[in-house]
């Protein structure tokens, strides 16, 4: 097991370094940031002075080295517009995004796993079809559109919820629902297929033949095996939700890092954009690593192998 964990750790560290380098270079290589920063009507001389002012004239590896050194000291640079330290801007808004992502994940787990289990226990019944329809819709409905429809129906027609801002818990209801709808189908379908697979194994059949109560059979034999991959997916989904919150936060004007990223992208505030990009990528890498390690600890095939 130690070997598995160590090799995963090594890959995660490599990926973390690469993704930081990629996130850093992406914006610099895809266009002329200096021209972007100097503004629409800038003269060539102004563009050059912007280039020197932001250190964009130095070779890319040197820029990255300087940035990494500052990062090690907790310094992500300053916003080009508000001149606040980027690290502070992100930390201030992180709780909003984390709450949103965690609530959405909890809701998809609380609804998705039981629905997936029921669908597996009663294949080809109405509950199985319902779960299929929910999954198909959840994968096909664009979240920006779902957000708008929820605003019109629940915020304006029924007036049950506030429609924009992040001042109270009620402001989180519609964004959480929107985000949960994107994570739910995957969790539900994976629970269903995992349960179906577990139910068809020899040990479950043996246990059933011995006359074990159906409830014990599910809880003790089928569920734990089916849930292993679901938990791994849930950890990965949390990482995806952090990045995916950009759409939901922009529509609901929820002041988290997604909205910050969107606003910064629109006004060309590249220190903020690149920091959020790298932050989300690192969070994703860490969460996948944790899921891998947890799997290695729980699954005897890896633990003893």
């Amino acid at each position, binding site marked *: 097991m130690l070997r598995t964990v160590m090799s995963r750790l090594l890959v995660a560290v490599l990926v973390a370094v690469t993704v930081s380098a990629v996130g850093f270079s*992406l914006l610099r290589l895809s266009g002329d940031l200096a021209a*972007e920063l100097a503004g629409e009507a800038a003269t060539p001389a102004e563009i050059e002075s912007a280039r020197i002012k932001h250190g964009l004239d130095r070779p890319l590896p040197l820029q990255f080295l300087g940035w990494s050194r500052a990062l090690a000291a907790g310094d992500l640079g300053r916003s080009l517009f508000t001149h606040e330290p980027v690290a502070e801007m992100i930390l201030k808004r992180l709780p909003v995004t984390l709450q949103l992502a965690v609530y959405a994940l909890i809701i998809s787990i609380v609804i998705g796993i039981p629905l997936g289990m029921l669908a597996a226990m009663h294949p080809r019944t109405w509950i199985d079809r319902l779960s299929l329809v929910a999954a198909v819709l959840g994968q096909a409905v*664009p979240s920006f559109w779902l957000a708008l429809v929820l605003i019109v129906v629940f915020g304006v027609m029924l007036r049950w919820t506030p429609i924009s801002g992040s001042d109270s818990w009620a402001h989180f209801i519609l964004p959480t629902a929107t985000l949960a709808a994107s994570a739910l189908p995957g969790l539900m379908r994976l629970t269903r297929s995992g349960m179906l697979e577990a139910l068809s194994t020899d040990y479950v059949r043996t246990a059933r033949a011995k006359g074990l109560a159906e409830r014990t059979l599910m809880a003790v034999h089928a569920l734990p095996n089916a849930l292993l991959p679901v938990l791994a997916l849930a950890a990965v989904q949390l990482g995806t939700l952090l990045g995916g919150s950009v*759409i939901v936060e922009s529509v609901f004007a929820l002041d988290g890092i997604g909205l910050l990223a969107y606003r910064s992208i629109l006004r060309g505030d590249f220190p903020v954009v690149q920091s959020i990009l790298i932050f989300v990528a690192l969070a994703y890498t860490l969460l996948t690593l944790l899921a891998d390690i947890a799997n290695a600890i729980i699954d005897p095939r890896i633990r003893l192998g």
Partner: protein
Amino acid sequence: MSDEAATPRWRIHGRRARRHTGFMLGAAIVALVAFMAVFAELLMPHDPYAQDLTRRLLPPIWDAAGTWTHPLGTDHLGRDYLSRLILGSRVSLTVGLLATLIAGIVGATLGLLGGYYGGRIDAVVMYVVATRLSLPGILTALALLAVVKGSLFAVTAVLGFLLWDRFALVVRSATQQVRAQDYIAGAVAVGTTESRILRRHVLPNILNPLIVVATLEMAAAILAEASLSFLGLGVPPPTASWGLLVSEGRSFMFFKPYLIVLPGALIILLVIAINALGDGLRDLASPIDSGDN
């Protein structure tokens, strides 16, 4: 079974396909949208770009004041809404097809290399995939498009280079399975060149999973284009993109909800149809002997 043994294979496939409701429905809807996209100029009742500020936000036909001149009314600039909806199919399908093609070429190449050669090459491929997966898709696409400036070409290219991960993973594991077959060892033994083995023996055998992933990614690309255009960094106005139509209708959605409901419904319908097509292809690709199910 006995009559199937005498019938040619394509007939059996055709018969099985016609019996598969999901596949037929999906195929019909995709064909319909493709028809809209190709023949948009013939189907559109008006010029989709012609603005007329004296005829802004005219009501649709189901409204008492609606007329057949503009069956779905006009938008905030007086452009015919039906024409813009029809033309929107073109952006969705173009981006969907081309981005999937780019992603397929990138991903299948990586997957083939990793799956066929294994060892160090496979480790490198998996590490590249892990790096790509850790980059948040929409966020990365938004940041890139802000620098290169959104256009149909830019959106297609950015999505193509972001959506290849599933291709790589699926092609890799399918290639590993084919690689272990005896006929590959046989081909190696008689001295067939590697590129010929990959082209003639491996590629045809991994085509089925490749096509299924292609439908999934096409649906994903269409959703992503709509999201990017909605956020203002995808295809630029005045292009008629369904995502852009939702974004333009947003200011009027409280009084004229159909302005956001219709383009959204078309996106959902197309994505469901493409997914149904993919599911159907997967079912139909399973060996004929396994019977119809």
